[in-house]
């Protein structure tokens, strides 16, 4: 008996002593938040995580590329389709739209992950070796650059352009800049003004450029790795973003300066006429400044942009053409020019919207297909976010604007060089007739007025960046009215007039704040008209 009780007591002591260890359970495919910035490998992984979030089909993987097109005059949906973008295609999208809500979430996820990296700059500083100084600068710089990119995208999708009000005092998106790691740090912020958001973007860009290696080199896993040069934000990508932001801010001198720096880096060159259609899809091509990679591990499958575009996949996205408008019953829509029709037959870019048949029973025949991303086998086509062509067009536009503003002929000449460089490289026929423009009220024969050149530049941008998620923003920032083709087969179109602020369609040139965000945050104000 005694023996038994002593053993029982011993046993209980043993059990009690093993309790602590026994309950110490650690996750295997996760890392505790407090450990992430305690070592370089985990910190590097946290930076990679930012880009991984951008790969999502709710961000650059699809929606951020498709929505600006399907909501504009560039794209429409086939009659044979699933339920994606139904609302946006008819300009009846609502705050309950799941794609919109997912995109908002995804963009803010990028923001909050960047916030955590930025906030841990001091902590990381204490663990790096002297040799890791440059890489460290890159990691933090990237977080700033990526945050700027995400806020810029949020601002474009969910708010009116900066110049909607003279002082940018209209509502934009909430600025959340501090890291949130615990439930008691959760915030319920109000929306900041557009001026505040754009100021923050500028600040982030400046902080990024301050830290990023001046060479543009990109480190991965501790060493300079050229295969990451175009797929992570480096100095040039950040400057390209600064140029893009400046265009939206109508800060023309900055746009010129930033784009010039990128162009002069000598790292990028335009596609040749003959190879553009092929080269565009190639990862890390010559033109690409920043692209979001895609490989067999990321396989977005049926959720991908390519699958939605390709006739071998869902194939439900179609480009617009004038033939679609002719089915329209409206009378005021004759100004419509389809995306397909904006190209000359010799324009290499027309291959991206070549005519074809919808591969589905009862589908449309002989309509522009969407062919910028078509690989539905390996999906290895990296989504192109910024290209050197944009730098030329942006500089060209900024110079032209300056020319008109300041009556500055030199700027106009410089602008024409940039614009014509693009036109020549894309269209053999137009190489014989490059733009000529004049500041005179009555331009000489063969020239157009500088103000008309501005419109032509926007058209050139449409042709260049068709299906690349830019169109609606160019329409919005230039306050341009357009005709929306609702459905390729159902023959309904409508005129979206930017100035007609009473029209419900006008409100819908931007997206609503997702309904959940309004419901669970008392300070969140919905966009007008939703």
């Amino acid at each position, binding site marked *: 008996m005694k023996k038994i009780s002593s053993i029982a007591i011993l046993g209980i002591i043993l059990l009690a002593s093993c309790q602590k260890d026994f309950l110490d359970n650690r996750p295997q495919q996760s890392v505790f938040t407090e450990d992430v910035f305690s070592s370089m490998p985990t910190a590097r992984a946290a930076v*990679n995580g930012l880009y991984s979030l951008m790969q999502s089909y709710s961000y650059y993987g699809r929606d951020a590329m498709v929505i600006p097109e399907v909501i504009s005059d560039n794209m429409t949906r086939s009659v044979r389709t699933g339920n994606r973008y139904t609302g946006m295609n008819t300009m009846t999208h609502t705050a309950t739209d799941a794609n919109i809500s997912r995109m908002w979430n995804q963009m803010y996820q990028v923001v909050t992950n960047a916030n955590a990296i930025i906030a841990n700059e001091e902590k990381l500083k204490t663990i790096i070796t002297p040799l890791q100084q440059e890489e460290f600068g890159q990691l933090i710089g990237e977080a700033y650059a990526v945050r700027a990119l995400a806020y810029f995208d949020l601002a474009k999708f969910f708010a009116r352009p900066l110049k909607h009000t003279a002082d940018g005092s209209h509502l934009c998106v909430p600025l959340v800049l501090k890291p949130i790691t615990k439930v008691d740090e959760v915030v319920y912020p109000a929306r900041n003004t557009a001026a505040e958001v754009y100021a923050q973007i500028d600040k982030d860009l400046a902080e990024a450029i301050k830290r990023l290696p001046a060479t543009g080199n990109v480190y991965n896993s501790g060493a300079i790795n050229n295969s990451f040069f175009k797929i992570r934000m480096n100095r040039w990508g950040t400057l390209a973003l600064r140029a893009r932001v400046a265009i939206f801010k109508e800060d023309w001198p900055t746009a010129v300066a930033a784009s010039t720096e990128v162009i002069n880096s000598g790292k990028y060159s335009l596609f040749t006429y003959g190879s553009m259609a092929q080269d565009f899809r190639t990862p890390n091509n010559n033109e690409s400044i920043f692209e979001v990679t895609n490989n067999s591990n990321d396989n977005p499958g049926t959720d991908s942009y390519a699958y939605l575009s*390709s006739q071998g996949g869902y194939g439900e996205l179609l480009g617009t053409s004038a033939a679609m408008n002719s089915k329209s019953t409206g009378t005021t829509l004759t100004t419509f020019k389809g995306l397909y029709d904006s190209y000359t037959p010799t324009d290499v870019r027309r291959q991206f919207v070549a005519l074809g048949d919808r591969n589905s029973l009862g589908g449309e025949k002989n309509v522009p297909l969407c062919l910028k991303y078509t690989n539905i086998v390996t999906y290895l086509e990296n989504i192109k976010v910024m290209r050197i062509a944009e730098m030329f067009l942006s500089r060209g536009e900024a110079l032209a604007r300056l020319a008109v503003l300041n009556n500055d002929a030199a700027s106009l000449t410089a602008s024409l060089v940039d614009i014509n460089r693009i036109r020549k490289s894309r269209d053999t026929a137009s190489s014989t007739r490059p733009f000529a423009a004049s500041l005179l009220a009555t331009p000489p024969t063969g020239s157009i007025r500088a103000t008309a050149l501005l419109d032509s530049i926007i058209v050139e941008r449409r042709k260049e960046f068709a299906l690349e998620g830019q169109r609606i923003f160019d329409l919005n920032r230039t306050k341009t009215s357009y005709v929306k083709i609702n459905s390729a087969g159902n023959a309904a179109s409508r005129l979206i007039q930017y100035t007609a602020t009473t029209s419900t369609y006008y409100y819908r040139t931007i997206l609503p704040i997702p309904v959940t965000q309004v419901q669970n945050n008392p300070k969140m104000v919905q966009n007008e008209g939703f």
Partner: protein
Amino acid sequence: MRKKRFCKPVMVLALLMIGQSVCSHVSAENSSPFQVSKETVQISGKVFNAKDNTPLENVTVKVVGTKKGTTTKTDGSFSITIERGQSLEFSSVSMISKTVSKPEGRGDLVVALQESENNLSEVLVVAYSSQKRSSFTGSLSTVKNSAIESAPNASVQESLQGNVSGVQSTNGSGQPGGVPNIRIRGIGSINASATPLYVIDGIPVVSGDISGLNSNTIAGLNANDIQSLTILKDASATSLYGSRAANGVVLITTKNGKPGKTKVNLTYQQGTNDYNIRNEQKTLNSAEYLQYYKEGWVNSGKSLSSFDSLLTANSISKTIDTDWFKEVLRQGKYSQYNMNVSGGNDKSTYFISGSYYKSEAPQKAVDYDKATYRMNLSTQITNRWSIKGGFSGNFQRSSNFLGGSFFGNPIRAMYRLAPWLPVYKSDGQTYDLSYNSGYNPVAVQETTNRNAKTYNINANASTSYKIMDGLTYEGSFALDFNHAFRSIYYDPRVGNANVAVGGVIENFTQDITNWIATNIIRYKKEFKGEHSVEAFAGYEAQRRDDVDLTLRVNGIAPGTTTAAGGSSPDLTTGTGTGNRLLSKFLNTNYSFKDRYFFSGSVREDASSRFAKNFQSAVFWSIGAGWNISNENFFNVDWINELKLRGSYGYTGNQGIDNFESQGLYSAGSDYNFSSGLSISQLANDNLTWEKNIPLDLGLDFALIKGKLSGSFDWYSRTTSNLLVSQSIPSVNGVTSITVNNGAMKNSGVEISLSSVNIAPSNPKGFKWVTDFNFTKNKNVITKIDSLFSNNGAYFRRVGRDYYTHYQRGYAGVNPDNGEALWYTKDAKDSTTNVFTTGLPRLAYGSALPKFYGGLTNTFSYNNFKLSFQVYVFWGNTIYDEYGYLQKADANPGFSDQSNGLSKYEYGRRWTQPGQITDVPKPVFLGTQSGGQYESSRFLYDGSYIRLRDVTLSYSLPKATLAKAKINTARIYLRGQNLFTYVKDKRYNTDPEVGIDGVMSQRPPVFRTFLFGVDITL
């Protein structure tokens, strides 16, 4: 290293105790001297089971009014010395106790005990113990073996339906071997697990789907191996399981051998499976379809004459008429083979069984089969020391298709594909893949392979050592190992997504290792024959570890079926997780004069799942019972037993993810083959258990000499500190956080009755027995501090029940013009004919039933026996999740996949002014009817009454069998789900859907009809 360290001391202790027992038992033996006071009589005899005359071991033989007693040996024999004039009481687990008054010591006393049915002398299997019903203060239900054994169900869980009160058992689908939804006393949780804990032979086992293909680990248990199945419901019954008891416990004990002659049982069953789909529930044929669209065309303002050219333009054939129901469905075969051998001697017993079960769903290529094996051994080493071991293995294999809205779901195709689509191209043998995104359902069925294999090994050993009179030590160790393997093959030719990537092969494998070590000290003592105390204290450690791997490749080489056949890797991933639980518990029962009973239990659980400061919690219960019929003053002739009982307590729920309280960055955010991390979870340092407070009041009774017996229970259980996923602004980087928030209450009434309506005067006479159970549960959300995300069809609001449907209000059809009408206000008193997506969502009924119950009647006469069970499920609402896409009122124009109108609805569509109906007119490319949007039009009354089980059996005469050396033989016909009455005529499939009341293009629950033979050698 540290994390991998195995907690050895727990096992070491168990082993030490076993070893120590061996050394010390000798000295303790025969310690009480034999005393003689008054005139004594030596009584010896044997105890048998009245049913089959097998000897009963371990029957307690007690001298009435004293603490003296013995137990029978393996051959049923016993010997005891009593004073003349004393009486003996014989009692045993699940047998009716019998008292032999004043036996004389002449010759052997032969006692036959009846198996008990729900009466107070029944011995119940309860948490970590067994106990007489008369002294039990808690609420539980036992399920009769007859309801489980030889039922054609793949899982024993399905056999709960209609057989037990307080348990809502619904099959989410008609896929054999799938995971049914089991809820005990309502929905107790929002985001944490709401399923009960399953304990098999003392081991809390892994339950649920571990292969990802709706395969059910519990289905691996052979129903014929089950000795007893107990559902623990209230505080007294469940609180010993502490942090996992909040949703009740299903306690299963498997069979053991009995001393005596070796017994061999054989069961064979064969039958068929069919769907109960009536013709009017099917979708339209080509003629009907074209008529419908023609009306839609005209209703859209077009001329009738232009309809034919429309058909041509849309490539629609008038001559093809495919019956998709015929293409997708079939008659399935069912068979089951079972054999077990059991026996033993006075020291050791054994039970060995094997079975094979196969069921083909009435849907082509949806198959399930399983093989099981079990061995239970026990041996008495000395009078004080015994050891038991069990080993079981099972293998389950199931194949099915993608479900829900996937193109590759043949059930979706069956309801939605237009009849003018051909199965084959004009050559008659090549699949036509030009529609449904290339997922021709016949091609899918013939080329797709989605198989899940699950394996389970359960090994346990336990030892019991009697330290001294009344004090026993028990130690046990058990391992529950589960392995799942999923293999998926999508043919490179079928389905656009598969064509695009050249086919898909996916393999997934998961191992779940779950072990548990328990040490218990039991104490039992009676004082002065009036006071009786039983107590036990235990220490338990449980650990579960999961690992899985997924591998997916594309570009499949023709003829290959494994990953090596793929030319490009697509996905490789693997995860690992686990949790630990360390517990101490104490349980005490006290009774006075067999009239007053008190019980109390305490358990402390420490769980690795919660934040450091909240890892440990103490759970408890108290209970009391009053056996009124044992009172001297109580003397009512027709009331034989009457017991009042009540219990109250606190149990917990830790059914959340293993690391849910922690701030986490998760892997998988890789970029360009370089590893990545991103924020996945915010830390909640205060996250703790869900608090469940059950209160139960019950009455057990037996009337008219036991002809009518049963129990009533009233209960309420309040769950507070609900573990919920609270939606937060996503500017915080995550869209939700897990917090303890809100409260919910379930309250209800349970009735179970057993009645012998006609009792025969001789065993061969006519007998009629009725069993009845009824459950009414009301669920209400009592507190929500902040907004929950409104999930799909449900909004969660204080004062409403958890599964309240909210939908745009469909107000029927305007008789004048056939347009749909919509409610504009909550009051449902004003309508509009303008459909917008912004119409308010109004509250409709709940997916939870108002009540449910089962009624089983059994008639026997001579060697014939007929039993039938009627199951009622009433007052719930079902939402057809994809109804709005199927029944689109021709709004999408010609579409290959919107032929969802049933023939019943087709017959009721609006065709002329003045017609009163609820099916609007079709309008080609219209929008008015809201045909492509969710609304209350797709809500149905889910009430149904089902003839769930009918068995007609004939037992062959013993005399005939004796020649063939067969003990007993029984042949029978059995039918399951033979007939179903559905209240809502509009509803077009089987009404048994998952707990959430969502009908989701799943294979419906089916009907089985079988022939069976049971033989005992």
